[in-house]
C-alpha cells in the first residue's frame, strides 16, 4: 500500500528542508495524535521504533480504520464528519486540520467541544493532541463524566502507580466499583443498564451510557484495550449486523475496528451498508491474512424465493426439523435434493471466498449459522400487507397483496434447515468451521423465539441472538 503523499500543510517547512513532499509518516509522528504504544498493543503488532509504528499506521492501519490512539475512532469520526468523500485513511488528518476546530467528536470517549471550553484552549490548538500530551498529569479529563482529579483523589493506588487514570477506569476501575466523578453515578447506571452492580456488570456502565447517549452501538465504544490474540475479521451479508457490525454505516468500503466479547477485530463494511459487491468479498479475502475470519453468509434465500405460498404448492420431508415429515395436503412432494440443487448457486461464491481466504493466509475461518424463521409472520401482516409502498410494489410484480398467501412457517423452517445444511457442507468442504444456531436460540419447534426477533423486520435476528452466535464463533470449539 502506498502512503498518502501530502504536499502542503503545517509540515511543509519540514518537508522543504528534506527536499521532498511531506509524507504521511512524518505528519503522523509530528501530529501529536499518534500513540505508538497504544497502536502496537491495540492492534496486536510489535514495532522496533516509533517511526516503524507510524509508518505502519500511515500506510496500512489508517486504511483499515485502525485507531491511532485510544481517543480517535476513524469509523465513528467518518460518520460525523459530514463529508462522504472522506476515506478512513484521511480521517485523522481531516480531524487535525478541520474537524476538531468545527467540533466534530473524534470518538465516544473524548468530548472535544467540552474539553476546549473546560481547559480554555487557544483557537488553533488541537484538543486531542493537547489532552494526549497532558493526560498523565492528573489535571485534564477527556470527558465531563470522568473527573481525573476526583479519581486520583479517591484512588491513591492509581496515583502511586503513575498509570493513565482514565485507562485504568475503563479497563478495571469500573469493575472494582471505583466512581469516575461526582456527576456520574456508576451504581445507578449499572443497575439501569444491566440490572447488576458494577462489580458484576458485563461492560463498563459509562461506555454503555455513552453508547446510548451518542446513539452508537455498544461495539463502537467497547473497551479498546481488549485481550491479545489474533484479531477477528467479521464479514457477511445482512445477518452480520446482528453479530455486531456497525449498523447505520454510511462510509466507504473498508474495515472498521471493534471489540466483541473481549476480542479485538474488524468489521468489513460495504459502502453505505449496501448490497455486497464482488469488490467487498475481494476485500474480505485480502484482509483475512493472520486473522480469524468469521463469515455470515446470506441466509434469506428461503424468504427470497418462497415467502409467498408457491403455486403449485410443494412440500418435502426434512429430517432436521421436528414435524419435518408432516406434509401439507394437496402439495406436490419434491425430493429434498431438488431444493439443494435449487439453492446451490447461492453457495458457490461462498466456496470461492473460503478458498481465497485460506490462500491469503487466514488464521481460521468460521461460518456462522443464520437465524431460523419465526413461527408466525405477524410482522408481515403489520408491516408489509397494509403498506402503500409494498402494495404498489406488489402490483408492479403482478401480485395482489390482499389475496397473496404467505408460505406456512413450517415449510419456511424446513427450507431454512436445508440452507443450514448447505452452509455447513460448504464450510466444511472449504476447510472452515461451521457454528450452527444452537437449540438455546430456538424455540422447542426450532423457530426463532420472539425475544430474538426484531420489531421492524421479520427476516433477521436481534443483537441478543447475534451476540450469542458471535460468542460461539469466537470460542474455539464454541458450538453448544
Amino acid at each position, binding site marked *: 500500500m502506498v502512503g498518502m503523499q501530502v504536499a502542503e500543510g503545517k509540515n511543509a517547512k519540514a518537508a522543504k528542508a528534506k527536499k521532498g513532499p511531506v509524507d504521511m509518516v512524518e505528519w503522523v509522528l509530528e501530529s501529536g495524535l499518534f500513540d505508538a504504544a497504544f497502536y502496537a498493543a491495540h492492534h496486536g503488532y510489535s514495532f522496533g521504533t516509533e517511526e516503524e509504528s507510524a509508518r505502519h499506521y500511515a500506510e496500512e492501519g489508517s486504511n483499515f480504520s485502525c485507531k491511532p490512539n485510544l481517543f480517535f475512532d476513524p469509523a465513528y469520526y467518518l460518520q460525523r464528519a459530514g463529508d462522504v468523500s472522506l476515506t478512513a485513511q484521511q480521517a485523522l488528518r481531516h480531524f487535525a486540520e478541520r474537524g476538531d476546530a468545527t467540533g466534530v467528536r473524534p470518538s465516544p470517549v473524548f468530548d472535544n467541544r467540552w474539553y476546549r471550553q473546560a481547559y480554555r484552549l487557544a483557537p488553533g490548538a488541537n484538543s486531542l493532541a493537547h489532552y494526549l500530551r497532558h493526560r498523565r498529569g492528573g489535571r485534564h479529563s477527556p470527558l465531563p463524566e470522568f473527573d481525573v482529579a476526583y479519581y486520583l483523589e479517591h484512588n491513591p493506588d492509581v496515583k502511586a502507580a503513575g498509570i493513565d487514570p482514565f485507562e485504568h477506569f475503563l479497563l478495571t476501575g469500573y469493575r472494582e466499583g471505583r466512581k469516575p466523578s461526582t456527576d456520574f453515578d456508576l451504581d445507578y447506571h449499572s443497575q439501569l443498564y444491566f440490572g447488576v452492580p458494577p462489580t458484576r456488570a458485563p461492560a463498563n456502565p459509562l461506555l454503555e451510557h455513552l453508547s446510548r447517549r451518542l446513539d452508537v452501538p455498544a461495539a463502537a465504544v467497547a473497551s479498546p484495550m481488549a485481550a491479545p490474540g489474533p484479531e477477528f475479521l467479521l464479514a457477511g451479508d445482512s445477518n452480520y449486523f446482528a453479530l455486531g457490525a456497525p449498523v*447505520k454505516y454510511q462510509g466507504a468500503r473498508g474495515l472498521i475496528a471493534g471489540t466483541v466479547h473481549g476480542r479485538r477485530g474488524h468489521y468489513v463494511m460495504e459502502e453505505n451498508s449496501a448490497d455486497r459487491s464482488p469488490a467487498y468479498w475481494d476485500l474480505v479475502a485480502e484482509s483475512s491474512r493472520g486473522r480469524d475470519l468469521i463469515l455470515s453468509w446470506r441466509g434469506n434465500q428461503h424468504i427470497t424465493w418462497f415467502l409467498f405460498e408457491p403455486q403449485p404448492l410443494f412440500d418435502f420431508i426434512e429430517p432436521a426439523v421436528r414435524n419435518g415429515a408432516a406434509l401439507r395436503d394437496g402439495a406436490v*412432494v419434491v*425430493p429434498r435434493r431438488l431444493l439443494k440443487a435449487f439453492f446451490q448457486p447461492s453457495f458457490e461464491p461462498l466456496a470461492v471466498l473460503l478458498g481465497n481466504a485460506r490462500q491469503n493466509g487466514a488464521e481460521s475461518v468460521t461460518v456462522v449459522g443464520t437465524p431460523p424463521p419465526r413461527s408466525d409472520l405477524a410482522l408481515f401482516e403489520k408491516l408489509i400487507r397494509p403498506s402503500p409502498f409494498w402494495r404498489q410494489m406488489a402490483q408492479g410484480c403482478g401480485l395482489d397483496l390482499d389475496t397473496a398467501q404467505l408460505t406456512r412457517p413450517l415449510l419456511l423452517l424446513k427450507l431454512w434447515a436445508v440452507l443450514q445444511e448447505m452452509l455447513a457442507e460448504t464450510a466444511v468442504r472449504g476447510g472452515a468451521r461451521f457454528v450452527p444456531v444452537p437449540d438455546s436460540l430456538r424455540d422447542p419447534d426450532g423457530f426463532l423465539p420472539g425475544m430474538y426477533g426484531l420489531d421492524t423486520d421479520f*427476516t433477521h435476528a436481534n443483537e441478543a441472538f447475534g451476540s450469542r452466535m458471535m460468542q460461539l464463533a469466537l470460542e474455539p470449539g464454541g458450538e453448544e
Partner: protein
Amino acid sequence: MEHPYKSVPAKGFWKRGVSEGFDPCELVEGRLLARGDKVASAGSCFAANIVPYIARAGFEYVRTEALPSLFGEVGADNFSYSKFSAAYGNIYTPRQALQLLQRALGEFAPQEDWWQPTEDVIVDPFRPGLKFPASSIEEFQVLRAQHLGAVLKALRQADVFVFTLGLTEAWRSRADGAVFPACPGTIAGVYDPKLHEFHNFSVAEVTADTAAFIDLARRVNPVLRFILTVSPVPLVATAAGGHVLNATVYSKSVLRVAAEEVVRSLPSVTYFPAYEIVTGPQAPEDSFQADRREPSQSAIDRVMRTFLGACDTDYRLPPADASQPLLGGTAPGPALAAPVPVNPLTAMGAYIASALCEEAAQND
C-alpha cells in the same frame, strides 16, 4: 366373378400406392384424435417426441407429475422423466408397463423395491435415472406413492393413451420377474447374475402383456382409447448374442405383429404406422441421422404431419423446410424448453427480502 384384387383401391398396390405417388395420409384409416381429446402417452423415447406436436395442435397433453415450474431448469432432467404424463421415464416393454400399472393398483410389489448405494441415496430400480434420488427410505416411499398415484391419475384424466412399443429385450428379477427399464449396473444399481436375468420377449408374451395392460388401464378408465405405435429407433445394443441389426429387426417385427394382434382383438385400439413411415422402403435417405439410429427431424416431421392429418384439428404442420424444428436431436421439445415465466410470488419475495436486508442495516 372378378378376382378380389379388381376391387382393391389404388393404395393397395405398391406401384400406385408407393412407386408412383406415396401419400402417407393414406396409411391411416379413421380419426386418431377428436377435438378436445386429452392425450397421455408412455413407451420409448419416440412416445415423448409427439408431445410438443400434439400440444401445438391444440390437444391437451395430460401431466400429473410435473415438478413445480418455479424450480425451472434445476428441475429439468436428462432421463425423460419430465417428458411423459407421469414421471415413469421410458417404458420399453409392455411387461414393464403392465407391472407399473399393477404396482399402482397395489397388485404387484417387486422384491427389489429400492437400491441403497449409500445411506442417504435411495434409488428407484424402476426409475434409476431420476436426477434427485430420495435421501431416506421414508422420503422414497412418499415419492414412490406419489408417482404411482400420478400414473393412475393420468389414466383417469386421458381420453386417448398413446403407447409406443420399443423393445423385446429386457432385464428382470429372477425372484419375481420384475422388469427393470435398464440392466442393473448400467444407470444405477449393481448387476448380479444370481438376482438378474436377461429375457427376450416372444410375440405371444408381448401380445398378452399389451392386451393385459390395456385391460387393466380400462379398469381405471373404461372409456380410454389406445393408439399403439412401434418405435422406429433401433436397439442401442443387444444382449441376445447376435448382430444388433438382426436383433433390431427381430425385436421390431415381434412388436409390430403383437400390435396388430391386439388391434384385432380389442375395441378402440388403433395402430399408427410411425415405424413404417420412418423405416419403410419408401422412406427418404435422410430419415435417419448419420448414425442410422436417431430418426432425423424431417422423419419426425413426416410422422407427425401424418399423425395430425388424421386428427380433428385445424393446425397443420408447416412444410419441412419452412418449419422451425420442433425437435433437435435429444434436446427437449419447445413445450419443455419454454422459458420459465417470471413468477410474481418469487419476484415479490425477493424484493421484500432484499429491502429487509437493507433495513437490517438500519436497525438499532
